[in-house]
């Protein structure tokens, strides 16, 4: 309920753990992007959307990158394509540990 915080009044925690990723989780399992979300929320809380979009762009970009991994995949894709191109032209052969014949690492 909006103005009656029932859970805080009775000291119980029923559903806070699914509100944001950085909330207190049962069994204390952290989310993968816990740190990024925490930084972004701390930066952007209480200052309104328009200001937050301008001032917290760095944290927001990192957070979205952690969740969606678009830039990582784009980077890997570029490397893959370049690798395929070079292998087709014959200028590059992968070393043995990249072809499945590496020694077991110890």
């Amino acid at each position, binding site marked *: 309920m909006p103005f009656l915080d029932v859970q805080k009044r009775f000291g119980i925690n029923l559903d806070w753990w699914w509100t944001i990723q950085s909330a207190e989780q049962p069994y204390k399992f952290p989310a993968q992007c816990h*740190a990024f979300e925490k930084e972004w929320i701390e930066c952007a809380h209480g200052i309104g959307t328009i200001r937050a979009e301008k001032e917290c762009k760095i944290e927001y970009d990192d957070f979205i990158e952690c969740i969606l991994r678009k830039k990582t995949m784009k980077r890997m894709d570029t490397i893959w394509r370049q690798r395929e191109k070079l292998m087709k032209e014959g200028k590059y052969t*992968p070393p043995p540990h990249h072809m499945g014949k590496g020694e077991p690492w110890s």
Partner: protein
Amino acid sequence: MTAAKVKQDMPPAGDYGPIDYKRNLLRRGLSGYSMLALGIGTLLYRYWKIIKCNREHRRLQIEDFEARIPLMPLFQAETDRRILHMLRENLEEEAIIMKDVPGWKVGKSVYNTTRWLPPLLVELYGLRPLEERVFANIMRYT
């Protein structure tokens, strides 16, 4: 009509014997109450036995954990060494592959922060054959 004797199917001489038609349920076995008591007694005995076995199982499990927990730093250190080695190899390969591409910074992090992030499976096994990545994906959860 009694001129010729017709051969008919008649009862034997002396008629049939007496027929058993009354109820004949034997009064044997335990009574209802005692069977109920036997059932409930078995249940309670088995519950107690389960409790004891669970406690014993818990003790054995604690012993297994006590063997595993002191070795965890060793395993974690090995895994960390292996991951760093693989990332280093990938970095060198990336430098070789992308040396003709203009404007490419080798090993550039896509994030604006310098925090250590656990590498994705794609980052570790990206340049290796697909079976290794599939196997690593399975082994992650075992």
